[in-house]
């Protein structure tokens, strides 16, 4: 008499033919998806750079890194004594 557990173990011997082109198709699709993801990443980076440049063009003061707020405020302080 075989128990359910033994019969389940026998299922591991079911012959399962693997389609011939399974690996090639999966590899080709996987690579295409990887490229698409990479292109999406580049697209997002370009978009972010464009937005940054746009904001800086609209507000040139943001690009002026020579005068920090603390430095300019110190310059305009009235002199005492």
């Amino acid at each position: 008499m075989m128990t359910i557990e033994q019969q389940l173990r026998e299922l591991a011997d079911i012959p399962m033919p693997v389609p011939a082109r399974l690996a090639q198709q999966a590899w080709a699709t996987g690579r295409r998806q990887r490229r698409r993801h990479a292109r999406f990443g580049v697209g997002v980076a370009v978009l972010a750079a464009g937005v940054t440049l746009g904001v800086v063009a609209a507000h040139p003061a943001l690009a002026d890194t020579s005068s920090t707020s603390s430095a300019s405020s110190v310059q305009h302080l009235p002199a005492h004594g």
Partner: protein
Amino acid sequence: MGRAVDEAVFESFVRASGASLLRTAYLLTGDHGLAEDVVQTALERTARHWGRLSGSAEAYTRRAVINTAHDGRRRRLARPVEVHAPTDVHQSQSDPTSMIDLRDALVMALRRLPPRQRSVVVCRYVLDLDERQTARELGIGIGTVKASANRGLAALRLLAPKLELVGGPGGPRQ
């Protein structure tokens, strides 16, 4: 590693593990065509991350197979349930085809288990993983594995009570 070498290694991985992955998918879905789709999707995911996988490619793909089979089941829930005529394994046990009938009856009974119980039963008894490996594979606790395995086996005994009366390849062994 070059792209051609990567592809060759991937192909040899599929040659070595494809049958086992397909079998797992078949036992989880109960349908050959669906099992092939599930394995194809899982292998595409593996191929996408090939070269960046940490750990065994087979374990990674098996997890993808289990998740894809469950996702597919969720999508198919809206469809009407297919009804299969139960196989009378008792009548055919002296027949040379009885083992195939028996196997089909067991696969059909497996298909009627809830997804988690089915996955646990397949991992524990068909793939022969221990409780810790099964828990890791399915992302659940060891206690849940034990409980699901017990409930799954009990349900299988109820769903296919005659299965335990039938013997191995030589016929009945009562």
